[in-house]
């Protein structure tokens, strides 16, 4: 895989998840107690042996820069190759919309890299994929572009690209659908392309007025390329809405999903915080929950996910909730069906309850 460079495209449309992404890009959403969403695709790249990763910075780059920093936690603070930040072009360079201009204005990064292939992913998927298998598939099929899909097991709303493929993996149709159904082959926004072809595709499409890489560059020009797709049969979640975010977190309370994503031979890396182990005090009662290091627990927690450094006071009851980093849930309060963003304080004896299918969201730094 030293012949493959990775690109993570952080240009997602945030609208469906706005409360949590007001100050951050969706890809730097805290997830699963200690991670950010981007950790999953970045760790998959690193574990697959990719040494050169470009991150296309989103409009709100602060949270991404603050999380990834030098790339050292992902072994990407290298003298040669390693992590690169690719900023968006300034307004004087381009006022066009869409993600294509970002690729176009960073083409020199691609051209100066020594790798033969480009692996393009987005940062809003949860998965643990070995991309080196994809490269083998790509080389065996002699594809121009290889994509990865998963097979949907249930109906679900949300815009997604759905594929139809022949038995050998050749993509016969590809279209953006408003929802997915049982057995849909849903694209995971992963593309492996020879760099030469990728550069030509970006340049031609942008210079002929294209705006969106997927729509204008790939879907519209699908008949010009030999496109194949291979299936990923492990866990996948696309975090494109608040409910998808909530559901994907809760999925991790299934030990099989937790084991598959995190405890296999390929770890998911994240920014280290050197938090101490969780302290369970005399009055703690915890059931079916994920608890991250740095928490101190004196109350009850059930079906919930506690991020690093959360304090749970005596007499507290937390249920079906996601409590982010450094929240302080003080004595005798009740928290049910809630997503607490970072640094929230729930003071004593407060009762907060969201709906079963519509969690209450408490924004960052609020004191209640």
């Amino acid at each position, binding site marked *: 895989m030293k012949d493959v460079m990775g690109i993570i495209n952080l240009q997602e449309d945030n609208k469906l998840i706005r409360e949590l992404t007001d100050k951050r890009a969706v890809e730097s959403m805290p997830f699963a*107690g200690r991670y950010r969403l981007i950790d999953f695709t970045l760790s998959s790249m690193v574990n697959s042996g990719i040494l050169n990763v470009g991150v296309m910075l989103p409009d709100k780059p602060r949270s991404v820069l603050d999380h990834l920093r030098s790339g050292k936690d992902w072994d990407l603070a290298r003298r040669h190759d390693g992590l690169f930040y690719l900023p968006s072009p300034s307004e004087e360079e381009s006022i066009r919309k869409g993600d294509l201009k970002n690729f176009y204005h960073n083409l020199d990064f691609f051209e100066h890299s020594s790798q033969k292939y480009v692996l393009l992913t987005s940062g809003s998927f949860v998965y643990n994929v070995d991309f080196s298998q994809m490269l083998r598939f790509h080389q065996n099929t002699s594809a121009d572009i290889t994509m990865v899909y998963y097979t949907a097991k249930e109906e679900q709303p949300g815009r997604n690209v759905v594929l139809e493929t022949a038995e050998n993996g050749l993509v016969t149709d590809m279209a953006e659908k408003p929802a997915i159904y049982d057995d849909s082959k849903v694209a995971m926004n992963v593309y492996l392309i020879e760099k030469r072809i990728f550069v030509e595709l970006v340049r031609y499409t942008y210079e002929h007025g294209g705006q969106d890489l997927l729509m204008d560059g790939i879907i519209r020009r699908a008949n010009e390329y030999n496109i194949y797709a291979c299936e990923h049969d492990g866990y996948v979640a696309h975090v494109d809405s608040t409910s998808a975010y909530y559901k994907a977190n809760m999925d991790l309370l299934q*030990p099989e999903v*937790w084991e598959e*994503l995190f405890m296999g031979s390929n770890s998911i890396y*994240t920014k280290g915080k050197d938090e101490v*182990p*969780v302290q369970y005090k005399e009055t703690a009662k915890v*059931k079916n*929950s994920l608890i991250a290091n740095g928490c101190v627990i004196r109350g009850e927690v059930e079906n919930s*996910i506690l991020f690093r450094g959360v304090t749970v006071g005596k007499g507290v009851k937390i249920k079906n909730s996601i409590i982010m980093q450094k929240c302080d849930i003080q004595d005798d309060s009740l928290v049910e069906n809630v997503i607490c963003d970072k640094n929230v304080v729930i003071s004593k004896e407060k009762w907060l309850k969201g709906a079963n299918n519509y969690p209450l969201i408490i924004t960052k730094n609020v004191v209640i």
Partner: protein
Amino acid sequence: MRKTECLAMILAGGQGSRLGALTKKIAKPAVPFGGKYRIIDFPLSNCANSGIDKVGVLTQYRPLELHNYLASGSAWDLDQKNGGIFILPPYAREKGADWYQGTADAIYQNLNFIDLADPEYVLILSGDHIYTMDYSWMLEAHKMNKAEATIGVIEVPWEEAPRFGIMNTDKTGRIEEFEEKPAKPKSNLASMGIYVFNKNFLKKYLEEDAKDETSSHDFGKNIIPKMLKDKARLYSYAFEGYWKDVGTIESLWQANMDLLQDQPPFDLKGEKKIYSSNESMPPHYIGPDAKVKNSMISEGSMVLGEVENSVIFPGVRIGKGVKVTNSVIMPSTVIRDGAVVDYAILAQNCEVAAGAKVTGQLGAITVVAEGETVEAEASGKQAG
């Protein structure tokens, strides 16, 4: 090139035989402590937090495993241009290799390392103690006193003083007398085994001591008394706070239990963080029927049974119906359904079979060595 002002040398000891089965496969500094740390994380983190970036680790035993744990030193931010962690086992030399004979001999055998680094001061630390300390304050005091050597001291209860090396100092802190394990101590200021020396001063005494065939080449027994005899400027530097020797099974177990008190005497969450080099693992999972209290649990573990008064390290599996009490369970150990563990230390990668029992008692903690399996029929007590 930036100059190294103060070089730290950590005496990471011999085969650590007082820790018995726990050091069968790893050097003592790499023994797990406190739910996710290794003993050596404490002096290394203290160095990092004190602005000391070049550290020699002197070990006789299993240097490769220690090298694997310390890696490039990046966990402690010691992978810097002029800094770094250097593991210093006894190398083969022109005359053949010698085991380190005592603490002073270990430093003496590495004088060429010290000369290469060429610091003004050498800080000598022991790898057996759990504490947090900013050594830069001690160094500052050393300079202010124009001392040739400064020894870290801590007040111990008078009745325990006879177990320690005891300092008798004047009002300014200058050391007048040093008694190793005195029957009738004149003070309760015990040496912590932490020394700052002016480099050239230290070198002179080590070279003299090496020639003395009657010496046991030990700082406490030989070097310090010799310096005092010569009326050298030796000062004490008083430390207040938690400081615990974890060189024996019982003290290691007790120091782990200390962390479980509601207001622990030693707060791992203090102002200065303790760094460690851990594999990346997810938050731990507590199952629907689990019961956990008065315990510490770390990342990557899965608890389906009961845990009380125990310290659980990363990647541990605790099955359904298991009862773990008053115990320390080290990384990646598996305790299968229905097993019972009480007053025990289970080293890394152990397995306790379903229904098996591992039980010790206060003062006689049972130890299961790294990689061992306790079968249900063979269960019961094992010698520590």
